[in-house]
């Protein structure tokens, strides 16, 4: 069914309709407008036409059509990312809106894997697995209500339970990818047609890794196989407060070294606490930094012992047990935490990775920039938060909020300086997209990027998959 008809101007319109259906293809500018941005403010080219494939065969036919006509393709998931990764860089692209491909394909309890179609959303998969007595490792980015599995693993997303399991791609065992020539490849143990998909590494080079974080430049992911774990029935939580950021860092790092938590979230800057969690530190005037831990185990005593150890680690560094409300809410409100912060204004993020021990120098630079632009007086609020990622690095989230359109110019000036500071202090963005790409390309080692380009050229000689991504210019 269609209400707003297609304009039928795109050269591939008729063929795309014959591959899919009239209701799932549109080049009308009203429809395309809704695909002009993701969840950040950055813009690139608008897609030339939107297609919503329903299955692998349709994706394959679309890719073959684009290969034959040398038409650019941009795959897109829930488009809730905050770096503009899903936006085409060249005109007339065919955008694949993958959200119709949302089925769980198989749950293999013997090999502890789940295979899903590319457009499955994190929240839904968690729900399905929970009902069946399982959990994922990485549980999805903070926008996991809308974010899709294939979208997240394509841009190295960070988020829930990364403290224990690492970023989104870490949980991937195998991918099904439609290559730019329309051929299909199954990675991991999927190379053996007689074998189950149960491991990522076997016999050959790790082909899965080539496509993880590729920002859609090397093919269209149609299925993802992820590791699963037994559901952990026992959860414990703790909030610790510290008189200095440095003390908090020591505890934060020690907890990670010992692998004690499912999730370790650290609120670094007291001055941003009220934006992040209003009222949290009102009763604790001397606390300058907090840590919030979530422990999940299949054994009750183990969960209780771990929280006890975390408390001891904190108290050894003059930390204070301040309850567990923030940790509980943090976990219970999974996927719903970020949205209320929009109330402060449109957000500008500097999310990136860095070793935990290098968080304080970032904070020093960020605070100086905040002061230089006198942002607080100008009504621009911020949060400075870090999420521990497996072992001893962290996703640092310094985010500022422009309350009105009129504040955007000032906020963007400060924000650009913050992005520079993040790179200059040893940060590595986890995703690239419009947000980080130019800065990353300035720093990237020539051999590194040339290797990627060699692979890209070999797989996609006509450069139809997400052209101009990783090339800069936006």
């Amino acid at each position: 069914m269609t209400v707003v008809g297609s304009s039928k101007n795109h050269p591939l319109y008729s063929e795309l309709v014959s591959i899919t259906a009239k209701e799932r293809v549109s080049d009308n500018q009203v429809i395309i407008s809704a695909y002009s941005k993701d969840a950040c403010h950055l813009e690139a080219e608008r897609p030339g036409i939107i297609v919503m494939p329903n299955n692998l065969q349709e994706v394959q036919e679309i890719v073959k059509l684009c290969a034959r006509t040398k038409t650019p393709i941009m795959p897109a998931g829930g488009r809730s990312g905050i770096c503009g990764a899903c936006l085409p860089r060249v005109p007339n692209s065919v955008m694949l809106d993958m959200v119709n491909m949302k089925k769980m394909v198989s749950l293999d309890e013997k090999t502890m894997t789940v295979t899903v179609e590319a457009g499955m959303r994190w929240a839904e998969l968690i729900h399905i697995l929970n009902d069946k007595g399982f959990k994922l490792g990485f549980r999805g980015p903070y926008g996991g209500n809308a974010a899709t599995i294939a979208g997240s693993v394509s841009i190295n997303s960070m988020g829930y339970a990364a403290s224990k399991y690492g970023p989104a791609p870490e949980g991937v065992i195998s991918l099904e990818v439609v290559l730019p020539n329309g051929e299909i490849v199954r990675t991991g143990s999927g190379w053996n047609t007689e074998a189950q998909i149960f491991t990522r590494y076997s016999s050959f080079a790790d082909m899965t890794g080539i496509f993880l974080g590729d920002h859609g430049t090397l093919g269209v992911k149609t299925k993802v196989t992820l590791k699963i774990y037994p559901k952990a029935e026992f959860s414990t939580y703790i909030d610790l407060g510290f008189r200095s950021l440095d003390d908090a860092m020591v505890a934060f790092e020690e907890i990670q070294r010992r692998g004690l938590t499912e999730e370790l979230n650290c609120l670094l800057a007291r001055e941003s606490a009220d934006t992040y969690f209003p009222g949290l530190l009102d009763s604790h005037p001397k606390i300058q930094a907090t840590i919030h831990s979530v422990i999940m185990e299949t054994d009750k005593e183990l969960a209780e012992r771990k929280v006890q150890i975390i408390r001891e680690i904190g108290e050894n560094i003059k930390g204070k047990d301040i309850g567990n409300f923030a940790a509980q809410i943090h976990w219970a409100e999974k996927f719903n935490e970020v949205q209320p912060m929009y109330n402060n204004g449109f957000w500008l993020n500097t999310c990136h990775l860095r070793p935990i021990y290098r968080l304080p120098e970032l904070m020093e630079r960020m605070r100086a920039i905040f002061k230089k632009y006198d942002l607080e007086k100008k009504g621009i609020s911020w949060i400075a938060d870090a999420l521990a990622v497996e072992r001893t690095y962290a996703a640092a989230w310094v985010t500022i909020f422009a309350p009105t359109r009129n504040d955007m110019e000032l906020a963007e000036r400060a924000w650009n300086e913050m992005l520079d500071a993040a790179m200059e202090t040893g940060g590595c963005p986890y995703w690239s997209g419009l947000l980080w790409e130019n800065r990353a390309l300035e720093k990237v080692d020539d051999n590194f990027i040339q290797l990627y380009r060699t692979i890209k050229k070999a797989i996609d000689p006509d450069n139809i998959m997400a052209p101009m991504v990783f090339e800069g210019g936006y």
Partner: protein
Amino acid sequence: MTESKFPNLISYKDELWLCGRCGDCSLADKTVASGRGVDHPCAIKNVLGFEAYSAKGRVMILNDLLEGKLEINQDVVDWAHACNTCKSCQETCMATADGIHMPDMVEALRKDLIVNGFTVKKHDEIENSIINEFNPYKETQDFRLKVFGDREFPPKAEVVYFTGCTSSYREKEIAVTTVELLTKLGVDYTVLQDERCCGSVLLRLGREKTFGNLTKHNIESINRTGAKTVVTACAGCYRTWKVDVVEAGYEYDFQVLHITEFLDELITKGAASFELKEKLRVTYHDPCHLGRHSEVYEAPRRVIESIENVELVEMATNKRYAHCCGSGGGVKGTYSNLANEVAGNRIREAEETGAELLLTACPFCYRGLRDGAKYIGSDIKVLDLPTFLLDAKIGKSMMKVKDEPLKLKFMEYLVAHPMIFDGLKKGAVIDYEFEDSRFHIEVIGKREVIAKPQRAENPDVELMFSPAAVETLVTFTSEDKYAEQFGKFFKEPTDSEWIRFNLRLNIVKLLMKGYRKFAQKAGLI
């Protein structure tokens, strides 16, 4: 320059800025996270597929229109009218305290489209019909009361039954059964001799010009009856009276109740009871104008649950997050197949419950769902609540009043210790639950609360207690000690003494209602 084309939409420019385009309004499934029960909130997007039909897409398109990146054309008109304005997106949205006001924005755009000369012929006809005959169906105003046959209504009564155009001219069964029900219940009621359209359909289509005249006429007409209460069985009329008339600045002295609220009051007072001969499993569809737009969720459920031999089972989406039936916002009249597709999806949800009967409480929903069932070939029976009740054995005070001493004790304790709620703003509502007992506390003033013995219509927070935790809490004479123990039960629960809660509003809205102090007193933060 472009903005001047949008005298109504422009007032939402700043709010459009606050949308973070997270996509919850389009794709969210929050059952896993916080028990909110959202599931792909936009019923229209669920049928039409493209992001453009969800609120997230609509925000981008509206911004493009305001910024001149899109010109108004017939495609924009078609798109603007493919929205049920059901408010499901807004209810899901957490970007602002109220959620992004997409239904209001869509209606603002519809007004601006008319300003710019882009009208829909069908809508012009509806407006002309209302201007000339005071109903949208091109029916003669003089025939409005024909639905009731020879029945005569007194000039004065305690209650006015405001019939509404759809029940008067189309879903006549609802009008007929409602008056029969009121008669059987012995209600002192009347029907207006000269009732006019409430104006709902005009407002939803972005047309306001005769709304004031309709409202003034209806208020005067009701006042002439001396009625203290107006009862309607139409969710659209109800929303108009409760929300639109008030927002437009008109005042009235009578109370307006939906038929489900009115029946709920009678049942609670012991003045009405219902019994079916045989056991029946039913499910209930929340009309958007009764639920999300007016926040009446529990009264219809209490009525249904009070009926002997009836079991109410909920659909996967219900109450605040119930999917729309597809009829609202002018969609039924403008795109009937789209409305049928949306209704068909809702029918499938009803079928999944295993219920034999789908109940609703609105003539639009009733018609839409019935058409939807037919459209997808479903056998499920659809009935409007008054029609269903008329088939039951009607009596008085048959309700079994449960003996709930702990509930009463807890309610009395909380009312006697209002300092527990110090800091909460007037209107804050907390729902309490332990075992099968449920009640709610409403803050009615500074350090003043009332306890009501049933579940709240739309609580801010739901608190769940173990009975042992309640037994302990009611022993404290000091509110501070109560709060301290309350926090302890949450932070350090045991198998027998525990507290859990669901936040039903987003954090921004909770803070605006004063919950920071409440949480701090309990040592939670």
